[in-house]
């Protein structure tokens, strides 16, 4: 039955896009916020892993997954704050600091997280939206984590907020033309520190999703570069929160191709397909970045485009 198989495949792909894409949503929205202020934070990978570890550890110790999520956000916030503060010193390059933070974040997480590899922390629960169906596959595909809905809502809120709130306009002004922001009495340095910290908070929550829901345990191979790919994703999304949402789902879908094919019985090339997100990253970069052209929509103060 080819028809059924195709339906199964797309259902699995959709479910996978949501399941794999949710951390991308948080990390890319966080990075979008940071980059809108004119800074780039390459340390997201470190923040993500730290968030995953902190979230898992706190959830295990307190017995509550949601306190774990908050702790993950807190850890991300602190690391974001560190990045923001260091970059505000004169003649410090945000890209170099980002790489240092990536190494620091993963290193700290591995060091502090050694003892949490074995025990089982409580997981985040999924909402089962598939109760109406008696098809097992539909029900499993429609059990979706609350964080996904929070992420979607967040994308809409950010998209609106960047346009229609004082802070949103201020953030974009600082990221686009720091000099006129200064002339209006704003302090770009403070805005940027706040934006980087907020971005770190979101990236930390993305990490908690990894350790507390999917794959759902803490180990050192947990992240597979989502933090770094988020940077590419934000460029692909042209610094717009709503597009970040779609791009995150697209990247999630790319990561879910292998399992989705497996669900319809095609298991050859499984590992090849798990490289799809990385191939997609390369393709996106190749298509969107060209010599002799600046990226349209890029914040003017970004070191990437200057």
């Amino acid at each position, binding site marked *: 039955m080819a028809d059924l198989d195709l339906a199964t495949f797309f259902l699995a792909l959709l479910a996978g896009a949501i399941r794999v894409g949710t951390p991308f949503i948080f990390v890319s929205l966080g990075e979008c916020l940071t980059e809108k202020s004119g800074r780039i934070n390459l340390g997201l990978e470190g923040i993500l892993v730290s968030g995953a570890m902190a979230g898992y550890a706190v959830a295990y110790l307190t017995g509550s997954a949601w306190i774990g999520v908050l702790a993950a956000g807190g850890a991300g916030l602190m690391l974001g704050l560190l990045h923001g503060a260091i970059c505000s010193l004169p003649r410090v390059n945000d890209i170099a600091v980002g790489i240092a933070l990536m190494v620091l974040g993963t290193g700290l997480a591995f060091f502090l997280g050694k003892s949490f590899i074995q025990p089982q922390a409580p997981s985040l629960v999924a909402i089962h939206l598939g109760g109406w169906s008696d098809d097992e596959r539909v029900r499993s595909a429609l059990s979706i984590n609350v964080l996904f809905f929070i992420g979607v809502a967040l994308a809409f809120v950010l998209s609106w907020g960047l*346009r229609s709130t004082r802070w949103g306009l201020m953030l*974009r002004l600082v990221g686009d033309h720091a*000099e006129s922001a200064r002339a209006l009495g704003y302090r770009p340095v403070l805005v940027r520190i706040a934006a980087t910290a907020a971005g770190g908070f979101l990236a930390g929550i993305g990490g908690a999703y990894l350790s507390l829901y999917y794959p759902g345990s803490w180990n050192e191979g947990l992240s597979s570069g989502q933090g770094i790919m988020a940077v590419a994703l934000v460029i692909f999304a042209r610094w717009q929160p709503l597009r970040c949402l779609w791009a995150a789902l697209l990247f999630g879908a790319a990561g879910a191709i292998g399992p989705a094919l497996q669900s319809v019985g095609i298991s050859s090339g499984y590992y090849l397909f798990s490289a799809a997100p990385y191939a997609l990253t390369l393709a996106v970069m190749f298509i969107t970045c060209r010599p*002799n052209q600046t990226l349209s929509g890029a914040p003017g103060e970004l070191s990437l485009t200057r």
Partner: protein
Amino acid sequence: MRALSLETIGAGKSFGSFRALGDVSMKVRAGTVHALLGENGAGKSTLVKGIVGYGPLDEGSILIGGREQTIVSPRDAHGLGIGMVYQHFTVAPGLSVAENLVLSRGELPWRIDWKQERARLAEFMQRMPFNIDVERAVSSLAAGEKQKLEILKQLYLDRRFIILDEPTSVLTPQEAEEVLGLMRDLTRAGDLSVLMITHKFSEVTRFADDVTVLRRGQLVGSKAVADTDETELSTWMMGESRTQAAVLERTRNDAERVPGLEVSNLQVANDRGTLAVKGVSLSVLPGEIVGIAGISGNGQRELTEALLGQRRRSAGEIRVNGRPYQATRTEMQRERVYSLPEEPLRNACIAGMSVAENLALRDYDQAPLCRSGWLINRRAIRLRARDLIERFNVRPNDPDRPIGTLSGGNVQRAVLARELTEDVAVLIVSNPVFGLDFASVELIHRRLLEARNRGAAVLLLSEDLDELLELSDRILVIHDGEINHQTVPAEAERQVLGRYMAGTEQNDQQVAS
């Protein structure tokens, strides 16, 4: 009357031991346009920065509307209703016109009610004599429109005293006329007083009510425009009447010669990937200066960059001395192509390297600066640098100083020293005297004419019509990436050139050479 009067009494300011401004007393009457005249470094900027609080004055006092006020920050000035329009733009290019205007207001509610803001902006625009679509992104505005936006911003903020810093430097004659006429009308109506920094006499005589002249930080004179004339003003500005540069002998025969530079149907894309140069053809003979006039942002930058090898061309051909030219280093050295690009510190120098090293950038890989093809002779580089520094009067005369620490005029002179060697065949020049003082301008113009007279083919891109009319043998006008007019300076009329620059007059003839 809403307009404010402003008076400075004994204004002064020093930077270290250098007295940039001393004892300047000047009065701007309410509801007038007051011109502030002086050459670069005369202290005009220091004075107005003091008035708007960007660099508070050390001495003297400021009277606004007859009452003494202390202004130590831009906030103070804004609170008093004083605003300034800068030469460079202070609007964020990535935001829309409406967002820029709303942001400029300062205190905003946490949630911005765009419906209400749009209605307010529409109502405001209705009252203004010129308009900009508020939904457009600032990056899509032409320079003239941006300048109007800067002025609109000041009016939107209800400023009653506006300082304009060389407001017309990026505008066509028509746009300049429109903007200045508008400012004059607003002052006549009593809504506004204007203090305008300028160096163009015609703007002073046509639009200003009073004029004040500064020289070397001192007040030279202040008068009603009706009571003075250009001769007096230029005497005030320069100390003595400016002497005409001696007309130089030139050896040129227009017999059939191979053009030094020949461009046919050149197309170049800009940073956003759209065509900025749309099929430009031109040729420059040896011993000729061809000027390209145009408002900034009409493809001049992309054209220059393509000619200098900084940017890839999309289509078309460039020939130098009759041979196809790809702007490789080998070709530049073989065909003797040199350039004076704009913003020399960015386009022609490496700021962190010493003056001597920068002077050797063209030929450090050739004898005598380089031995056996790979070993650099640092002694030779320094010796030659000393010689060039003396000949071109670069100050301070220290070959080991990083070039980024020199003043703009000295950087330009150093680049001139490197590029104007004895045997230039083709010279590509872009806005060579932007922001330089009179002495440097004279020197650079003289050297350009000398190079032409020795037989160089010179392509001069400039936004300054006076410069083009003074130096060029032929003038082409570029608009929106196309050459739409050609003339010779003797027959050129400013107003006609201006119309072509603005694109209101279309291709009168097929201009090919």
